């Protein structure tokens, strides 16, 4: 599968309070959360992004709280993929678990600029910077994680396998 969109670029250590401030956590409704996505780091994000756009960030994206509201808000906002140099641990799990596509790629994280048009090929984990005419290769996922991604999230994966202890 391929997705294409405009890059919204952020720095290192974008924390979960920036992605979705705690003042909105009295709900878990995805649409409502999406309406406040990135509000404290980029108040124009909600107005300016289009479905399928891509978030590109630096190191440790999603650090801070365990709130699944963060990847839920991003996914419900229509973002097709988050590319970062690295992801914070719980955000990484949560994104995989809810089926928000993420990729880790140092080069893409450094070189992609705000507003560039980016295409991502999830089969090959290749990232194409169409504005700069460059190609970057993201880290492939471990096999077990790939299975969850393929099932489009942990819940589907569990339903399908009803927990066979098949992790090597």
């Amino acid at each position, binding site marked *: 599968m391929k997705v294409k969109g405009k890059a919204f670029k952020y720095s290192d250590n974008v924390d979960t*309070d920036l992605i979705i401030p705690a003042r909105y956590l009295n709900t878990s409704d995805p649409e409502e959360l999406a309406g406040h996505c990135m509000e404290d780091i980029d108040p124009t994000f909600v107005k300016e992004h289009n479905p399928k756009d891509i978030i590109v960030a630096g190191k440790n994206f999603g650090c801070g709280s*365990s709130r699944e509201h963060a990847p839920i808000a991003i996914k419900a906002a229509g973002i097709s993929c988050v590319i970062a140099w690295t992801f914070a641990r719980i955000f990484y799990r949560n994104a995989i678990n809810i089926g928000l596509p993420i990729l880790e790629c140092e080069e893409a994280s450094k070189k992609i600029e705000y507003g560039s048009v980016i295409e991502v090929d999830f089969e090959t984990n290749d990232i194409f910077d169409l504005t700069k005419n460059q190609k970057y290769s993201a880290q492939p996922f471990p096999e077990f994680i790939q299975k969850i991604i393929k099932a489009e999230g942990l819940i589907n994966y569990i339903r399908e396998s009803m927990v066979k202890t098949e992790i090597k």
Partner: protein
Amino acid sequence: MGMTMTQKILAAGAGLESVKSGQLIQSDCDVMLGNDITTPIAIKEFEKIGRDHVFDKSKIVIVPDHFTPNKDIKSAEQCRMIREFVRTKGIKNYFEVGEMGIEHVLLPEKGLVVPGEIVIGADSHTCTYGALGAFSTGIGSTDLAAGMATGKCWFKVPGAIKFVIDGRPSNFIMGKDVILHIIGLIGVDGSVNKAMEFCGEGLAFLSMDDRFTIANMAVEAGAKNGIFPVDEKTLTYVEAHSTKKYRIFEPDGDAEYDKHFRIDMSVLRPTVALPHSPGNAQPIDAIEDINIHQVVIGSCTNGRMEDMRMAARILKRKRVAKGVRVIIIPATQGIYLKALEEGLIETFIKAGAVVSTPTCGPCLGGHMGVLAKGERAVSTTNRNFVGRMGHRESEIYLASPAVAAASAITGRITNPEEMTN
């Protein structure tokens, strides 16, 4: 090659002879935790799995603490949904307003976590229980849903960083100063995906409350967990609070650590993390005059008994500065009551502070002390991210209860050593 303490616990949980760093395992969990923010999503996901019962009614713990007592209709609806789930599934450990407290202070107090256990919690500060020599880590709501259905969770076995703690700390140095100093040293991504394993002779000078504070903020360095060896103090604590069976794990002599750090507590200064990162830690002597509007003493980091006692020691027979709002929140009903019995609450009120029922409240800008634009707070909580306590142009300075109480009196960030009683 030997295993770290964390790896040994994980190997046991997964029923494996040994594990190594980077390995993906599936492990049984002894305790699973959710709160009023993360549980509603977990319930929705649990229902999608299509099982009508949870794997074990006694191993799930739910504590509504963030927006409780409920601050608005939406948060009340979330708690209603939780209550319904708890009732229909027969979950044993649910703590309603009146018996609740901030989850990470409540669970050890109620004896729900003991050494050697594997604990997952849909809250990032679940790492707090590492103070008891347990493996405990934050996960998301979907992980919690899967855990409630299956009793299991997947982990990537972490490598570890070893922190050797030496030296006797001076009078006003608390666990908070130790952990803020460490995060300043290694950075907010200094321990990403790794275990922080603490050891050394200095541990003898760290109380259980200090250790809870330190383990609590391991996640602020990106760690998967923070963990302390089980010693006399741990066992005294556990025996006073729990009847659960525990297991003591120790790292192998030849365990491999990615890095080593030595922390000499005898030279540690009261430490403050400036906005907007817990990694911006500075010794108090390096901080110029910073006027403040609010002081918060509480949270899963510093709402424990010793924190209350330290604050009272400094506030005794003093008045908080005019124009400074001081909010003190004992983290559990038990601590609240004890503080009342010891006369601490009276000290706080006479000093001009307000005392609240247990809640996360201001720690996450939820309620009970939200900051306006341009306001500054000294807070004993664990995060000073942009907008964490309110307006995105407000500022949070993280510090120990000693620094927070001293600052309450002067109205500017103040070294507690300057306070003479």
